[in-house]
């Protein structure tokens, strides 16, 4: 119950927070002026997880943390940092969980092995299916 009250209080004060956010996260709801940089930032934001939300990227969430992460991404892109460097920095800070693009590590290698195995299986299945076939010349 207490938690509910806190939650309600939080929600009621949300507009105030949003205003505060303007000063700490200026680029949460503002695009970069350079369209090329904005596209870069957008692509990166779409592949970063909003840590507070459930199954949403920071590019499509209204949560405050998503807002500040968007602002962080845009500011760093604007200062000329490469998207993958920003991703690496975020992963270092928040763990692999933050990136929707799994990196190739000792933990995630099966994710990349499976498609390769599937290609192999598909090839073998098709080959087996069609090489063993005795040709049916009108029987």
């Amino acid at each position, binding site marked *: 119950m207490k938690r509910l009250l806190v939650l309600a209080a939080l929600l009621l004060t949300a507009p105030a927070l949003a205003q505060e956010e*303007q000063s700490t996260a200026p680029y949460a709801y503002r695009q970069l002026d350079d369209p090329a940089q904005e596209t870069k930032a957008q692509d990166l934001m779409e592949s970063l997880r909003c840590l507070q939300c*459930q*199954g949403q990227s920071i590019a499509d*969430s*209204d949560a405050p943390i998503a807002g500040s992460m968007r602002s962080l991404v845009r500011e760093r892109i604007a200062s000329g940092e490469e998207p993958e460097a920003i991703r690496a920095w975020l992963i270092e800070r928040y763990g692999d969980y*933050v990136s929707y693009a*799994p990196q190739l590590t000792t933990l*995630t290698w099966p994710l990349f092995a499976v498609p390769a195995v*599937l290609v192999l299986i598909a090839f073998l299945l098709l080959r087996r299916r069609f090489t063993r076939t005795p040709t049916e010349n009108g029987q």
Partner: protein
Amino acid sequence: MIAELGLAALWLAAALAALQLLAGALGLTARGATLGEAVRPVAIAQGLLALLAFACLIYVFSVTDLSVKLVALNSHSMKPLVFKIAGAWGNHEGSMLLWVTVMGMAGAFVALVERRLPERTMLATLAGQAFVSLGFYAFLLLASNPFERLSPVPAEGNGLNPLLQDLGLAFHPPTLYLGYVGLSIAFSFAIGALITREVGPTFAKAMRPWVLGAWIFLTVGIAAGSYWAYYELGWGGWWFWDPVENASLMPWLAATALLHSCSVLASRDALRSWTVMLGVVAFSMSMIGTFLVRSGILTSVHAFAVDPQRGTFILGLLAIYIGGALTLFGLRASTVAEGERFALVSREGALVVNNVMLSAILGIVLFGTLYPLVAEAMGAKVSVGPPYFNPMSALFALPMLVVLAVGPLLRWRRDKFARVGRNLVIPAMLVVAAGIALVLIGGVSLLPFLGLALAVGLGWASVLPLKGRNLRRTPLPIWGMVVAHFGIAVALFGMSSESAFSIEKLVAVKIGEVTQVGPWGIKLDTVEPVAGPNWTALEARLLVRYGTDGRVTRMLPQSRSFWAPVQQTSESALLTRWNGQLYAVLGGEAPSVDGKDEVNGSGNRWQLRLWWKPFVPLIWVGALLVALGGALALLGHVLNDWRRRVVRGKIAYRRERQGR
């Protein structure tokens, strides 16, 4: 009273399912043959009882009977009636009741009309259906009783998640469930055929309409869900490879493969064990999907039930049914002859490629969805999202789509590319032309590029099977195939166009200010408060104009505050043109940049999120075309069967009259 009636009906239905299983199983033995007679009527009664229970639940929701715990937790007296009713399945218990209801009704329907298969196979099939139902009845009655009473009765209910108070939601889950659970029939047919070892064209022809029916509902359900996410979540995304979305996609992939292998089995008596296997896999995917969504093992946008105990129960059911069916398959597959042979370049060959590719995509989606859970169990958290799924599924989807352009033109058994090659010159040229055009436009990344170019060629190639046919005498299933394949091309075009050409604009504007988004000029006219039955909102009036001389149209996005439960949502406004959709969302009030404007109150800025998404509606138009194609094929098969039955009846009648 009504709630108790519902519960009683549910227990009775469960008991009848047990009887159906027993009678079906004994009916297969020599001594119990007479019991077999009871199976069909019992299946029908069981379905009707489940339906009665579901009707009772809808009733208690529609009158907001707060003494029922489920109603108190998920409804509110001030909700519009349609959302009260939709609330009945917008929660864990209700949706599981919907699940068993659909399953019971599907079984009843099969028992009522399916007469093509040998009676022994039918008994085994209906017993299998009852076996699966029984587990889910047990789950409902023991672990998630929807009719539980509450004392003392609360004065008011908790309400329904506002995101779910939407017409899209009212129809999305029932449609999806008809598809999910409809696949249980394919599963039961597969089990029945494995038990009696009767796998052949008759089996495929009997199974095909049921798979088609379920698949149509799945297609529509997935499309509706995607459109709901698109306009309701307010960020313009239509597919995020969210585990819950994947849970609905996996059965669809399996069912699509099954549909195609079914037609090989029906027409050519080939791919026997493979088809049976897919029948088992398709419904297994439905069950895995239900487990993922309902167990709370994932927490994502729409997973609104969290309870680990239930998860263990469903996991147990999964182990029994999937494990059992696969074991049965393993034991019997070797005794099912492989069937007819065919060459690589043939209609069957193309369909095999389709099957292998769809299965591979299914494998990737399944693995990518489950892997984060596995990693979490090992103590590490990873996320797998669009950057993984998009390229990995395209790896298999693109070759499959190329084969799709050629396959329907090939003859059964064996053919030569040389014969069909001439027809494909135009589609190939279209692909090249589209590719060149896209290079000239520039800035399109690889996957959308391939998608757009391929979609154009595929659109042309998909109607080629009609060439040289008398259109009026073309069988309906051929029309169905053409329409569905054309729908795939249309949807592919929409998806690729959306990701290649979308324009996003986030602005903070004053009243009267004009913003340019792609070809659109958008003026914020007013922002005013409005009220609904259980919410209040700020509504912006946008005056928008396409190009410089277009008509001015109004758009009314809202920022809503619901009070039961307290939650803010953005109601997006959509404006559809033939070449795309303008998408507008009203955000919060932004403080003025310099603070000067606040003197005269009217100078406040408002956050607007605007998107121009060229051809985005084609995604759902395409999906509906795919479903329409399925419906045409289904109608064709059913009509054919019915005609044959009428002719057979007439012949029998004449023979009788002539005294032969």
